[in-house]
Structure formats: structure tokens, C-alpha cells
């Protein structure tokens, strides 16, 4: 019997190695796997590369992971947030590497990784600092730059519903990066608000099929807070 549901945070985090690339879903505090980030803090892996839309806020979650010196590099589109004090301090002190990526390019790099597309051309960033050092090609009269897939060793995802096969649904704007992070990661770990019996999620309503999911932890925390 396939059962991807794990009963403890320790089981959810087991085996995450130092030096891993971690893809972190979420946008604002909506659909962000906060419990799993806390689990990763507890688990202890270090020298991490973290890809996320933002670079953390306040002194909790991703910001706390960075504050503890566990993140070597952050890949994101928008390192500013309502309270980016931890990231800005580390960045000014040269203690963290930053790769800034346009938001659509980061999303497509993650999607491409999940779909087996190693590289792709995009018009986004042509003529800007983002294009420096990248291969340019003119295709049908328009100039494009070459971007590479962004694979995760680990993907952290927040779902609304999950079953023991790892089929997932998401709630409203909580979907954001979650489905593509699940696709692009070798080890996809999900925290889910609800656990459903196998067959109880209508097949037409599954947003992420279980093939993209490795572990599911039940975390019924309720609604996202303010951000």
C-alpha cells in the first residue's frame, strides 16, 4: 500500500543533506509552508541554496533560517519585503549570496526543471542587467536570452487537501508556486491543512497529482496570518 503520509516532522525532514538546493513555495504568507520551514530549522541542514520569491521577513521562517547562518545563497525575485532586516544585514556583510531573477523567469525555470526542459529562451530581461553574460539568440526577428532549469533537491509545499497517494489541492492564491515546486524537486515534502481518504478528492479537482509528491504531513493551522 502506498502511504506518503508521515506522522512526525522528524520523518518529514529525514535525510535532507547539507548543501541541498531547497525550493520554497509561497507568496506573501499565503500558501507558504511555514511549519516545514520551522522543521528544516530544527532538522539542521546547512550550506543551503534556497529559491523563493522573497527573502524572508522579520526573524521567523526563512529569515530565521538565514539568521542562523544556514543559507549560503538565495535565489529570488524580490528580496525586499515588509521587514527584510535579516537578509539585508547578511547581504551588506557579504555573508549571503544573492541571485536576483525576474519572477516569471524563476517560475519558468522551476516549471522547466519539472518538465525535463534543461534550458529555454525568453525575452524577459533582454537589454537589462539580467542579460549580462547570457547567450543571446534572435528567433523570428526578436532577441531572446537563454535561461536554465532550476531543480530542487528538496521542495517545500503547502496544500489545502492531500491524500495518501500525495494528490493535492490548493486554496485560492495559496496555489502560487506550490504546483511547480512539487514538480521540480527530487524530494517534495507537503504540509496539508486537510487529509482526505483516497478517492475523496474528485479526480477533476486534483491540482497536483501524487506523482510529484513524496511526503505529506498534516498541519491544520487554519488561515494565513497578516504579512
Amino acid at each position, binding site marked *: 500500500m502506498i502511504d506518503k503520509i508521515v506522522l512526525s516532522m522528524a520523518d518529514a525532514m529525514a535525510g535532507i543533506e547539507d548543501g541541498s538546493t531547497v525550493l520554497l513555495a509561497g507568496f506573501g504568507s499565503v500558501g507558504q509552508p511555514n511549519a516545514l520551514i520551522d522543521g528544516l530549522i530544527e532538522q539542521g541542514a546547512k550550506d543551503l541554496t534556497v529559491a523563493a520569491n522573497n527573502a524572508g521577513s522579520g526573524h521567523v521562517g526563512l529569515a530565521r533560517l538565514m539568521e542562523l547562518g544556514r543559507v549560503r545563497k538565495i535565489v529570488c525575485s524580490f528580496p525586499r519585503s515588509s521587514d527584510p532586516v535579516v537578509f*539585508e544585514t547578511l547581504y551588506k556583510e557579504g555573508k549571503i549570496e544573492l541571485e*536576483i531573477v525576474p519572477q516569471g523567469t524563476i517560475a519558468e525555470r522551476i516549471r522547466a526543471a519539472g518538465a525535463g526542459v534543461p534550458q529555454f529562451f525568453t525575452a524577459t530581461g533582454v537589454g537589462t542587467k539580467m542579460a549580462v553574460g547570457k547567450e543571446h539568440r534572435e528567433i523570428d526577428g526578436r532577441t531572446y536570452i537563454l535561461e536554465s532549469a532550476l531543480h530542487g533537491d528538496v521542495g517545500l509545499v503547502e496544500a489545502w487537501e492531500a491524500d495518501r497517494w500525495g494528490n493535492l489541492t490548493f486554496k485560492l492564491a495559496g496555489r502560487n508556486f506550490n504546483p511547480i515546486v512539487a514538480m521540480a524537486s527530487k524530494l517534495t515534502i507537503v504540509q496539508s491543512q486537510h487529509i482526505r481518504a483516497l478517492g475523496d478528492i474528485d479526480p477533476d479537482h486534483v491540482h497536483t497529482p501524487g506523482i510529484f509528491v513524496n511526503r505529506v504531513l498534516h498541519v491544520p493551522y487554519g488561515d494565513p496570518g497578516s504579512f
Partner: protein
Amino acid sequence: MSDFTPFNRVQMAKNAAADIPEGWYVNLGIGIPTAVADHVPMEREVIFHSENGVLGMGPAPAKENIEPWLINAGKQYVTLRPGGSICHHADSFAMIRGGHLDLCVLGAFQVADNGDIANWATSDNDTAPAVGGAMDLAAGAKRLWVIMDHTTKSGEAKLVTKCSYPLTAMACVKRVYTNLATLDVTDRGFVVVAMAPGLTLENLQARTEAKLHLPA
């Protein structure tokens, strides 16, 4: 000295809103562009998109009706109107990068008369610059309009011959709504299509680095 009356922020948003026809799919940037939606009546069906996978946004919710799972790219609570939908981030940016949006409206630091836009960083050594979705929107939407003040607070021109700040995208701005004028970006450069009440072309040119043209 007030020989003319600049458009205020509400009027700038209204000026842009008046030019959006029914049926367009539109992404509005943070700041004055967000306010454009307030001036498009619900019965003129314009479908507003947000980068985080929200399509078909309605008016802002009353405090007691906030849905905590529904925010826009500016992290504000929003609503969906009937017919609205949700998708994931890569599909949302496929709408942008695949040329499916009829219009994007952004703020900017500078716009050049060839349509170049600089709106994400004010210098080359900005600490931790944040680009978000601006480059995708500028390069990907079918047309890009900008809403911004005509000059900086200290009076420097923002409509220029060449952007001095780092570019967001090249040659893509089609129209600019400022507090002084509305201008099209054409093969000839900036063409003035409307001016604030009482303003003369000479007066406008004095506040603009790039050469201004009148409609042919």
C-alpha cells in the same frame, strides 16, 4: 505660480481607466496603476490579472469580508468577481510572457522616447535590488502604459532621450500618463495627446528632456 492645474493622482488613474476598452485582460502595477481599476465600472467588463495567479479581480473587499487566502501581487486582500479564476505561478506568467495580456500599466522612474523603461532600480549598485515581475510584464504584455509624475520631486525630467537608471525592458512603452500630460510613444518619439488644463506645449517641453511632438 499656477498658470495651470496638474492632474492629481485620482485624475491620472481616471485618464488611463477611460482608455481601457471592454474585454481587455489587464495587469496593474503597484501604486497609482492599482487605482486604475477603481475607475473602470463593473459593467465595462475588463479582466484584471495579478502575477500570483489571480484572474478576474473585483473591487477591494470590505474589512468584514476579507478572504485571507486571496491576495494580489502587492500582498493586498482582493476579491474575485463571478468568472474569476486561479492558476499557478508558471501559468500566470505564461499569460504575461506568452503575450496574452492586452495591457500592463506600471509606474516608472524614467521612460525614454524610444519606449525604454527604467522602473526597478535607481542605480547600478542598489543594495539588494528587487525586480519582481516588472521585466516579465514590460517585455511580455501586448502593450505597456506607464503612469508617473512628469518630473522627479526635485524637478528633474523623467521623460528622457536615454534612461540613466538600469533598464527594465527596451522599446516597449506605448503610452505615458503623467500629472501634466498624456503622451504616446511613436516612431517620432513622444507625441502629446492631452495636457493638464492651462498648460502650454512650451511649458510642458520645459519640464521634459526628450523632444515633444504634436499629433501629425
